[in-house]
């Protein structure tokens, strides 16, 4: 380990480590790419890929992100963008959960869908994509439907979960699991021009407030469909919330829901002062 650190230091004279040096270090000392990156960050050596995270993410924070684990539940319209952004940001461990496979009607919006991978499992496409953009990220895929029974085990490693699911009842199950595990849940949902985002902290029961009055399991997306830009914007807001949760920074969308109307270009923040608070 000492030799590895000395080697990394010798290869990072300006405090920056390029990818070739990371690969050579891994080969030379028989460590995984993840372990090499972790050791570098721990020593305050910054992989060049994170250079443009600039002063916004300090080196200590970059190390913290790399030690973090996020579960992305759902790998469709929202999940694809959330995973892409977290991998580029430098979140070290991702658990990706989805049972579905890509179909032609996903191509209008789902980032990881392509002509080449139609018929393939969404989680397989996701892990391939992450390995292409950031091989130091450790990805665990679970090709199963999320439910409340398996949920506790599925999310056992996560510091925070992203709700990128489809439908209403399964989201309530996810919210319940997160509450039991006492981890924050960053919720996003879309329908046509519309979207909503919030962060539910343990004990807040925000998703119950959002959905308990719904008498249907599918929202307006059933008739409105989903456009390319709505998941991109909602997922980006979710990724920003996840980043802040992990770094304990800024103000979260907790105790309030951000309702987005891209048709009228209105962003309405609604307080969730509910019967639970």
């Amino acid at each position, binding site marked *: 380990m000492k030799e590895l650190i000395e080697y990394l230091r010798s290869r990072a004279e300006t405090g920056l480590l390029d990818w070739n040096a990371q690969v050579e270090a891994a080969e030379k000392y028989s460590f995984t790419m993840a372990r090499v990156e972790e050791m570098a960050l721990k020593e305050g050596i910054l992989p060049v890929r994170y250079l443009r995270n600039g002063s916004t993410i300090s080196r200590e924070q970059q190390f913290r992100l790399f030690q973090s684990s996020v579960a992305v539940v*759902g790998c*469709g*319209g*929202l*999940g694809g963008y959330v995973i892409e952004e977290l991998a580029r940001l430098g979140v070290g461990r991702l658990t990706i959960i989805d049972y579905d496979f890509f179909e032609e009607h996903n191509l209008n919006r789902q980032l990881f869908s392509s002509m080449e991978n139609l018929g393939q499992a969404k989680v397989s496409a996701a892990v391939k994509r992450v390995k292409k953009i950031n091989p130091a990220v450790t990805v665990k895929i679970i090709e199963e439907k999320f439910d409340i029974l398996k949920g506790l085990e599925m999310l056992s490693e996560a510091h925070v979960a992203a*709700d*990128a*699911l*489809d*439908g*209403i009842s399964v*989201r309530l199950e996810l919210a319940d699991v997160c509450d039991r595990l006492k981890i924050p849940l960053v919720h*996003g*949902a*879309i*329908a*046509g*021009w*519309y*979207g*909503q985002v919030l962060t539910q902290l343990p004990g807040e029961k925000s998703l119950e*407030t*959002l*959905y308990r*009055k*719904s*008498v*249907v*399991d*599918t*929202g*307006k*997306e059933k008739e*409105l469909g*989903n456009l390319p830009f709505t*998941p991109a914007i909602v997922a980006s807001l979710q990724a920003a919330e996840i980043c802040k949760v992990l770094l304990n920074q800024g103000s979260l969308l907790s105790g309030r*829901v951000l*309702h987005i*109307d891209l048709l*009228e270009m209105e962003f*309405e923040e*609604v*307080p*969730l*002062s*509910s*019967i639970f608070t």
Partner: protein
Amino acid sequence: MQITVKLFATLRKGRFKVSSLELVPGTEVGQVADQLKIPREDLALIFVNGRDAELDHVLKEGDTLSLFPPVGGG
């Protein structure tokens, strides 16, 4: 009595964004939704003066009622 109703997303279609309604005292939220011909399955979030409210909530003079449809796609 007069209340203000704010509608969001698809609920605006064929209706309005914001409107003042003249109601008889004792009117409940659900009755306003019926009057506006908003089907039950189109209601997810109901706020009265920014607070989460139920369909049987009795409205008062000067209240602001905000209604949102369910959004659940991913």
